[in-house]
């Protein structure tokens, strides 16, 4: 896990903007986008759905990817992960 300050310095390889979709939209958008990045690359998922900030860390753990942390912005979450 990284601190908020560390997360803010990451130059992510892919941003998935899933704001405006309800669960399970953000999780599926993340799943589909994962195929477009390589192992070792990072992805940031933007979601306004409260459940996503719980779903993505658990999904990363099950799928063997690295959950890096979440930043709460006004009205949405920035969720960071690294593909393994």
């Amino acid at each position: 896990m990284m601190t908020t300050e560390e997360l803010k310095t990451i130059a992510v390889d892919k941003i998935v903007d899933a704001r405006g979709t309800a669960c399970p939209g953000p999780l599926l958008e993340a799943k589909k986008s994962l195929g477009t990045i390589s192992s070792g690359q990072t992805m940031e998922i933007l979601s306004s759905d409260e459940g996503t900030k719980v779903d993505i860390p658990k999904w990363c753990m099950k799928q063997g990817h690295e959950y890096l942390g979440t930043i709460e912005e006004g009205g949405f979450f920035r969720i960071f992960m690294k593909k393994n």
Partner: protein
Amino acid sequence: MEAKKLCLALYTGSVDKLTAAGVILSGAAADDMQVDIYVLLQAARAFKKEVGDNEALLNMAENPGMKEEFMASLKKLNVKTWVEFFKEAKAITDVKIHICGLAGKVWGGEKLDDFIDLADDICGIGAYITSAQEADINLFI
């Protein structure tokens, strides 16, 4: 790692429960699960070509008087139709949809072609039992 298997006995033909099944299916797709869906009695009607996600032809299992409000809320939240959920899951992971032969006949569907293109085959109950025995997760909706 071998894919986990979900076996879903889909009995309902109601739009609220079909949508719930679609949401669960999305979770299974995100986890790369192998999914077998057995379309039983009432659900087979929803899989008929003339029904599908034509909401005017679908009922609600719960709170039937609130269908209009329910459907309007789903649209406002950009929630996919149940058919879209199923299609998307099929595009992501291994989802096989089996129409129970008896169920199909109850609603006048004899051939695979009588059903929406989500359906993979028409099967008997033995196939369902075998799949249920092998599955990591079994659901009846």
